């Protein structure tokens, strides 16, 4: 059996260590060993985006990343969005605009939208659709997800103005 390794990284601002086989996928480490069950498994073939987390400033499908690749990384998951009892603008936007139904894709959607808004604080509808196309949703038809991202973009830009 391949030797297990200890991998250390920052998860939502907290230093964590996890002991894994090299083949362990990040989504399994997060969900099974680090009790972060917000990111979900939808397809295991990197098509659906339900497992999206943010690693070192990149939106990544954590079903297609090895935990051993995350040594010293900064990892953000949906569990890291609420700060001091305050919801993030995206979390608020998804509720206000009815951008979720079953909720399964929601953590990945919000995490992806977070990085999108960092890179493009005021995206057009077309840009939102293009840059959110790595996340599948079966319930909403995306229309209200677009509105939710726009809601957050407006709120964040008026807060920073």
């Amino acid at each position, binding site marked *: *059996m*391949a*030797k297990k*390794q200890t991998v250390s990284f920052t998860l939502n601002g907290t230093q964590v260590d996890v002991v894994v*086989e*090299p*083949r362990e*996928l990040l989504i399994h480490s997060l969900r099974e060993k680090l009790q972060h069950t917000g990111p979900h498994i939808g397809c*295991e*073939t*990197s*098509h659906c*985006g339900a497992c*999206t987390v943010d690693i070192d400033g*990149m*939106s*990544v*499908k954590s079903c*297609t*990343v*090895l935990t*051993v*690749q995350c*040594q010293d990384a900064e990892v953000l998951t949906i569990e890291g969005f609420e700060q001091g009892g305050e919801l993030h603008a995206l979390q608020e936007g998804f509720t206000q605009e009815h951008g979720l139904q079953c909720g399964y894709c929601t953590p990945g959607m919000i995490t*992806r939208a977070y990085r*999108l808004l960092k890179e493009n604080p005021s995206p057009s509808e077309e840009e939102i659709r*293009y*840059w*959110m*196309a*790595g*996340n599948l949703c079966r319930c909403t038809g995306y229309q209200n997800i677009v509105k939710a991202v726009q809601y957050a973009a407006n709120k964040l830009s008026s807060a920073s103005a």
Partner: protein
Amino acid sequence: MIPREFDYHAPQSIPDALGLLAQFGDEAKLLAGGHSLLPMMKLRLAEPGHLIDLGRIRELQGIREDGDTLRIGAMTTENQLIWSQLLQDKCPLLVEGARLISDPQVRYKGTIGGDISHGDPANDHPALMLALGASYVLQSASGERVVSADDFFVGMYDTLLQPDEIMTEIRIPAPAQGTGYCYAKLKRKVGDFATAAAAVTLRMQGETVQEVAIALTNVGACALRAREAEDALRGKTLDDAALAEAARLAMSICDPVEDQRGDVEYKTAMAGEMTRRALSTANSRATH
């Protein structure tokens, strides 16, 4: 959907990586973005004993201009290509192509070098490289060699890259000012591979084609250079007859595999249609 066991290595430098490659030989696979290799490993279609992760080698990343040559580290990601102002200014075809690859998350991880060296005829960079006249730097413990994109692709998943070599850099001669370009890609949805696609670079002199390169994605065992179509266009006006002839000649070299995207006839026809559209768009973008 769980990979078999393997050992993981994360070298910090090219020599270290080459050393590991020499040590483990056929047992080893290089890990770039991982979005082709890891799914194959999860399906147990690939079962390497050792995985050598190139992600921590700084020298393999970055885009720079060296005289008339654009030099792109093999581990540069698709999103880095898309957001490069240098490429937008000097080689917008590469930006246009990268924007049509897979989806946003995959583009954060997927690399130009991984896309090329995988040798998958469905990947987009090979045709882009052919149209741009690129060459690749391949390093091994015994030194480095530079091979042209035209020679690199041998067949399905078969390239000139040897088991002891690593692709370290992609070199692209910066297209002359006023070069028209287009990557026309037909796909079923975001995230899909091309049903067929055509990459074109085009230099016009007035209404006459001065220089043209046409390359096709996913309609053969590897990316195809449509040389006869190119030859037929040089010195010609890009009128309907010329476009039709170029499309016909491009189709004549296609040998696609039937799958859920379409049958051989459809894919071949789409290679022709994408050729025609790429040429028209390139023409509209070229300086006349």
